């Protein structure tokens, strides 16, 4: 958190600059601008502080005083600044502060601290005299964060939290080129795994809180932005719907993990809840402009190791000579040496600028921001241009009885999607063939042909894929709300809160391929468009009541919520490049239009006795239009207790233990998000109209078909029961703080698409409530302020998560011979994972490869499965499904994050290291290309291979061999940031900070492919995560 030094009168501070620039006062100011300024609860030791205070005095007086909270206790870490100067100090452990070298005359002292309402006091300083200021009381500001923790429907003091809640604020965010908000906290939160989907601009991430609680329903956490639970369905034309929020606007992430914290969100809380709060203005603050500009350069490091042209020619010729492949394949060799990967990748530049105005106009705090991003992908032609704006107003009316918060965020994003098919294509395309054929056909690109037309059994020229396809979209999204919180005049303990919100998006996209291109040859090009509208509405209202009666404190909350999700997409015909329709006779089809509604009642009671014994109970009743009236309502209770052990007499005076709290919680949450599997009306008997291409001919008539769909009228909620025991602790005056949690989550009534008895319904599978799954784990988070000197500070943060998932039930009837539901199609309907009872979700399910004495993998006389190549596990002499082995799974055994923040004076150095240990990854690139099949297809082309072929000698692909399975453990240097504060370089009161950030600088892994970090555990030619270097400038005035 950067301390804002305020200079209201330009002329006055110019003089001051002249007066002060030669003094050491600067160092005080700039030191404050460093991380120490935010160190609530971690005050510098008085001795250190004194040493700084007693710097050579210049002329002037001094000011001293004390800041206390509403209970009269000193507050450490409050920033006290003399307005219009860079002079200031922080309060020490007892809340005392002292400012030296103050020019005589009247001054305004500005007190500020995160989580507290700022205050201003006028004092008059006399030359050469200390001025004692009256004790200043700062009260909690619940709209700010930190000590106040955002929880569902409100905030609470950190000390009162009884559930597992982690907050990350601006100062700890990942720096550098961050395009999408979730990347701000990657590696920062125990129990949260964020896996970037790939290197494309605005690419989506997979976020998992404590593993997945579902197999088929969504495993995404609920994301609530400024009180608006946002739609987690994708937005057509937007790579990642979250990237439509500018990360620069975000103040904090709060992750609610256990059921005690999440149950207030009921049926959407099973996968955790992430509360995102945006930055706000503060009452009484002068207008402050913050400008941030970043430019970054992204390059891929490494590429998929495939043969070059010469090596490929040698391999083919040798293989022919050895009789491995027929001589006819020599015909596919060209004379070129093309590195297809070099041909599709580029160095990509990104500029990211944003400006914000924060302040308060007539007690209406405001923040207005505008951001513009222009990001190129390292895969050529990919680009994202994003303009975002946000407005936040938080007026307080009626003597502070009515608090209004208005948030409006709007984004326009223009995407140009590069065809990611080019990535795998480049790894496979024949390196002896040129990019350009030398003739005009297919826009000049070389293509494999069948007769005169492109051979559709192989890859298109990867360069053509990028250049010939223009896949663009424009997406508009706005999220906003108005929240009214009224403290009743006649009963101030009672608040009435009303929140009206919306989340709307509009997207338009086109995909154009010219008629001359090889990409859409059969349709003479492509000129298709799509549009989508989403209108999601929110109405929430609640009453909350808080009362302290002696040693008893009670908070109660009761609310109602209505949320409606509406999606519409018109039907569009398919067009050729020239604008004529591909199938002119096809009739117009219905648009896509769907809607669902969630209606909820919820309540929460917090009780604490002597701030020592805490209890929280919540209950939410959710009604979802996804389910039939009989199963529509679900009830989600949770309860937790916490014991603040520190408050007990035996610890109260301990100097070692500064905080200790034991938490125990149990609760039930639900999962109703099944739209992706079953649509919005899964319980209804539906008929669908067959497309014109699947009609039936009767005599001379062509009849469109009507087809009934399978359905389960009794579909209901998934239920997750979570048990959590946690310990929050602080030692040595909270220099070392942390939390440890142990949890068990059991999902029952798992919504799974299961095989149903033949004949029982109108398909062979049905989405129904069956099966159970459990996750158990341990999370540990530690913060340690290693050094906290005046100039030199160093803090480190470490977190670790160990989660184990296991399927405990998967079918209506137990059958030990049932091997499970295959998952992870790696292409050509080949499945390499399985969901099976007793194993982790998506466990790899493969044959055990045999190796010869020379260490080379064995292969049989024919390509059929055989016991020469694979271990015959059941010894029946043949190799079939029964010989597959339940192996490793993609989920890491441990997820580790480590961050360090070091600052010395004006300079700072921060880095984040992430590591996953013990997860496995299936190298599908090698699986596809470690064999001679690509050289010998008999299909009119030959394709490149990986050098593994020398080791395996496989004649055909062995997708089910465990040779393709590798340890996916890695250590990634996620982020390194070097910053320097120039402070008031131009004029006093301005801030200037330069940062140089590197992302993804180092990846240590034994994995033979490019990058083992895949959410699914399958590495299939994904878009490489680039290495990015960002130069950033932050200017405030």
């Amino acid at each position, binding site marked *: 958190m950067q301390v804002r030094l305020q200079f209201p009168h330009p002329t006055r501070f110019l003089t001051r600059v002249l007066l002060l620039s030669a003094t050491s006062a600067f160092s005080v100011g700039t030191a404050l601008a460093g991380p120490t300024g935010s160190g609530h609860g971690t005050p510098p030791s008085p001795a250190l502080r004194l040493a700084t205070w007693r710097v050579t005095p210049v002329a002037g007086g001094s000011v001293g005083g004390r800041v206390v909270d509403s209970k009269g206790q000193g507050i450490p870490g409050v920033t006290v600044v003399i307005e219009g100067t860079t002079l200031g100090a922080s309060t020490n452990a007892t809340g005392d502060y002292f400012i030296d070298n103050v020019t005589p005359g009247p001054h305004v002292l500005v007190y500020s601290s995160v989580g507290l309402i700022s205050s201003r006091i006028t004092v008059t300083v006399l030359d050469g005299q200390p001025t004692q200021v009256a004790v200043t009381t700062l009260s909690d500001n619940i709209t700010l964060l930190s000590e106040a923790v955002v929880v569902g429907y409100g905030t609470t003091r950190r000390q009162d939290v009884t559930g597992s809640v982690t907050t990350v604020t601006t100062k700890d965010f990942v720096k550098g080129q961050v395009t999408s908000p979730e990347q701000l906290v990657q590696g920062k939160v125990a129990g949260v795994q964020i896996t970037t989907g790939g290197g494309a601009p605005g690419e989506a991430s997979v976020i998992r809180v404590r593993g997945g609680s579902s197999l088929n329903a969504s495993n995404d956490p609920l994301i609530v932005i400024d009180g608006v639970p946002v739609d987690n369905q994708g937005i057509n034309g937007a790579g990642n719907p979250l990237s439509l929020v500018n990360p620069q606007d975000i103040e904090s992430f709060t992750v609610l993990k256990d059921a005690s914290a999440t149950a207030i969100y009921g049926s959407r809380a099973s996968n955790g809840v992430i509360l995102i709060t945006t930055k706000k203005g503060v009452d009484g603050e002068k207008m402050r402009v913050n400008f941030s500009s970043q430019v970054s350069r992204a390059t891929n490091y490494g590429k998929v190791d495939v043969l070059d042209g010469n090596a490929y020619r040698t391999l083919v010729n040798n293989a022919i000579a050895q009789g491995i492949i027929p001589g006819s394949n020599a015909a596919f060799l060209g004379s070129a040496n093309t590195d297809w990967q070099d041909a599709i990748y580029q160095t990509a530049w990104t500029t990211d600028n944003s400006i914000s105005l924060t302040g308060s106009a007539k007690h209406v705090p405001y923040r207005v921001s505008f951001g513009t991003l222009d990001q190129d992908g390292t895969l050529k032609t990919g680009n994202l241009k994003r303009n975002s704006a946000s407005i936040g107003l938080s007026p307080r009316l009626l*003597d502070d009885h*009515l608090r209004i918060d208005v948030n409006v965020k709007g984004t326009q994003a223009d995407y140009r999607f590069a065809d990611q098919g080019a990535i795998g294509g480049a790894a496979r395309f024949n390196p002896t063939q040129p990019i350009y054929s030398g003739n005009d056909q297919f826009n000049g690109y070389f293509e494999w042909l069948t007769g005169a*037309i492109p051979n559709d*059994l192989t890859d298109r020229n990867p360069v053509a894929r990028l250049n010939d396809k223009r896949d663009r979209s424009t997406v508009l999204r706005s999220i906003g709300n108005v929240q009214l919180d*009224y403290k*009743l005049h006649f009963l101030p303990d009672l608040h*009435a809160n*009303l929140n009206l919100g919306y989340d709307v998006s509009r997207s338009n996209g086109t995909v154009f391929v010219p008629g001359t291109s090889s990409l859409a040859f059969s349709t003479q090009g492509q000129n298709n468009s799509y549009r989508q509208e989403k209108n999601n509405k929110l109405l929430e*209202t609640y009453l909350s009541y808080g009362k302290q009666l002696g040693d008893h404190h009670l908070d109660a909350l009761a609310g*109602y919520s209505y949320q409606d999700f509406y999606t519409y997409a018109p039907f569009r015909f398919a067009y050729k490049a020239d604008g004529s329709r591909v199938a002119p006779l096809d009739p117009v089809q219905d648009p896509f*239009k*769907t809607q669902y509604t969630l*209606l909820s009642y919820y309540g929460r009671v917090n009780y604490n006795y002597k701030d020592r014994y805490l209890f929280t109970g919540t209950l939410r009743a959710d009604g979802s*239009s996804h389910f039939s009236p009989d199963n*529509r309502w679900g009830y989600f209770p949770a309860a937790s207790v916490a014991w603040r052990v520190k408050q007990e007499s035996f610890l109260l005076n301990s100097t070692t233990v500064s905080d200790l709290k034991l938490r125990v919680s149990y609760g039930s949450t639900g999962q109703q998000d099944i739209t992706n599997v079953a649509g919005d*009306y899964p319980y*209804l008997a*539906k*008929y669908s109209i*067959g*497309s014109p*291409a*699947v*009609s*039936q*001919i*009767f*005599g001379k*008539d*062509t*009849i469109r*078909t*009507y*087809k*009934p769909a399978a359905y389960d009228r009794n579909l209901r909620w998934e239920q997750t029961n979570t048990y959590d025991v946690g310990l929050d602790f602080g030692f040595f005056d909270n220099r070392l703080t942390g939390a440890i949690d142990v949890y068990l989550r059991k999902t029952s009534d798992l919504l799974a698409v299961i095989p149903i*008895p*033949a*004949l*029982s*319904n109108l*398909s*062979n599978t*049905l989405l129904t409530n069956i099966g159970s799954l459990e996750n158990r784990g341990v999370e540990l988070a530690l913060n340690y302020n290693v050094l906290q000197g005046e100039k030199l500070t160093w803090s480190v943060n470490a977190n670790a998560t160990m989660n184990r998932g296991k399927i405990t039930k998967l*079918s209506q*009837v137990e*059958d030990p*011979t*049932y*091997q499970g539901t*295959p*998952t992870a199609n790696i292409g050509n*309907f080949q499945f390499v994972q399985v969901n099976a009872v007793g194993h982790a979700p998506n466990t790899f399910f493969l044959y055990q490869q045999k190796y010869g004495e020379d260490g080379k993998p064995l292969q049989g006389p024919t*390509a*059929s*499965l055989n016991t020469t190549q694979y271990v015959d596990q059941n010894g029946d002499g043949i190799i*079939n*499904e*029964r010989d597959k082995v339940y192996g490793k799974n993609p989920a890491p055994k441990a997820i580790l994050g480590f961050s360090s923040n070091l600052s010395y004076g004006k300079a700072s150095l921060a880095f984040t290291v992430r590591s996953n240990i013990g997860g496995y990854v299936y190298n599908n690139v090698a699986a596809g290309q470690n064999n001679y099949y690509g050289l010998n297809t*008999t*299909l009119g082309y030959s394709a490149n291979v990986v050098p593994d072929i020398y080791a395996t000698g496989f004649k055909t692909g062995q997708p089910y061999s465990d040779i393709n399975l590798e340890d996916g453990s890695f250590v990634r240097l996620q982020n390194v940031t070097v910053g320097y504060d120039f402070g008031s370089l131009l004029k006093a009161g301005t801030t200037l900070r330069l940062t140089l950030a590197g992302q993804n600088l180092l990846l240590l892994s034994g994995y033979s492919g490019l990058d083992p970090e895949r959410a699914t555990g399958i590495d299939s030619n994904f878009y490489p995560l680039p290495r990015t270097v960002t130069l950033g400038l932050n200017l405030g005035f």
Partner: protein
Amino acid sequence: MKSPLSLRRGGLALALTAALLTGGSTSCTKDLDREPFYDLNTESVYRDPANYIRVLAKMYAGFNLAGNSGSPDVFAGQGKDEGETSYLRAYWYLQELTTDEAVVAWNSPPLQELNTTHWTSSNDLINNSYTRIFYEVALCNEFIRETSDDKLSARNITGASAEQARLYRAEARFLRALAYYHALDLYGNVPFATEADEPSKNLPKQITRAALFAYLESELKAIESQMNPARQGPYGRADQGAAWTLLAKLYLNAGVYTGTDRYTDCLTYCTKILGAGYKLAPEYQLLFMADNNVTSASEIIFPITSDGLVSQSYGGTTYLVHAAVGGRMLTSAFGVNSGWAGNRTRKNLPLLFPDPASGFDSRAMFFTVDQNLEINDLTAFTDGYGVTKWTNKTSTGANGNDPQQIFVDTDFPMFRLGDVYLMYAEAVLRGGQGGSQTQALDYVNALRDRAFGNTGGVTDGNITAAELAAPDFILDERGRELYWEGMRRTDLIRFGKFTGANYLWPWKGGAKNGQGVSTNLNLFPLPSTDIVANPSLVQNPGY
């Protein structure tokens, strides 16, 4: 310091909040009754009799198409090839790849299990066929349920509309019987449900093979009179001829299905068909071309229709044409854009012809250039002769309708007169009453006349009564006439040659030269997925 004004304003806000807290909630509860904006439901479909033919169309399409352009009717497994769930393709896999007539090169374990007569109950393709069959039955059950006389009158459907609905209902019962017949033949003792059983996840009961046989016999006899007369309905719709042929097939194999031979009944129904005016197509190859619906309509009793524009699927005949093209075969010669290099034949089939490449018997349609007769590697397309029988070329040499040449127009003759000729002959030879050896010989020689292109009294290739009566002649002739038409496994079983060691083919039982296999393989296993899902089922012996 509260001003009266602010107090009043506050009161307003409170009132507003209170109103929202109480009133808002009640008025919105009904919003939970969301209904689809466009989707049809059972009631809205059956309210309008004009919709009935569309549901009927789906039941017919169910034998060919995999689903609705990206939304498959049944799931082969997440992300698995939808085309493989096509009824016809799945059925063909089991009836042909398991026999002496065909092998496939694609190196997927379940396919190779079929190649090598070595499957388990978890074989995906055995599951696909099973699933597809019972999906078809469920579709028919739904329609039959919704078109009962009670439902028709409850929906006020009367007069000509009701008559038409009854005709459709009879056809739906035929289609259900056809699907059940396949279940009977492939799996034997299977789950059984009729229109009386509503969609659920309840467990259907198992029926024995003999009981299912009896049900099908009675069902087909019951609907016979309600269907269009033979050859009188629109091409592509099942009529009495189709019902008779299905009965004839049931009776021909009755010994296998029930232990009791019914050759006389078989002859009865063959005779009905033979009296209905069907004629052989003028040339053998016309039956397997893109315009066979025109050139061969006189012979085809019941087709699975296909069109490259309006009935697209990667199953059906699109599969049959593409999968057989590979090696040096020119895709352009078959009217398709690509060959899938999958299906070839084992040597037994070409060796049924005196000289496969002679061209004397026009039914010997093999591609031999750079193809080996012997199969050393099942997954090498060039091992085993190619078969050029199925094509997307028309009789005039044009391509089918699909300009992209992906989907083919060729109809699949599920039942055709040539088969009935051979069934007649076989039933006579096996002792059925009501036919004659002379007639049988005439029918067989009629097929051979066509095969050898005889005109004007030429009798090339004709056989004698003695040759006809030779052991295995009928089986061999059925091979020559009907290969790759999805009948081989049934025929081999009827002749006792599918399992055991008295007849071998390359890779039978997994050995290159073939080896005997257990007789339990005469029935496919009930798929393990269904055994799990429906514990009331008893698995077939040996699995």
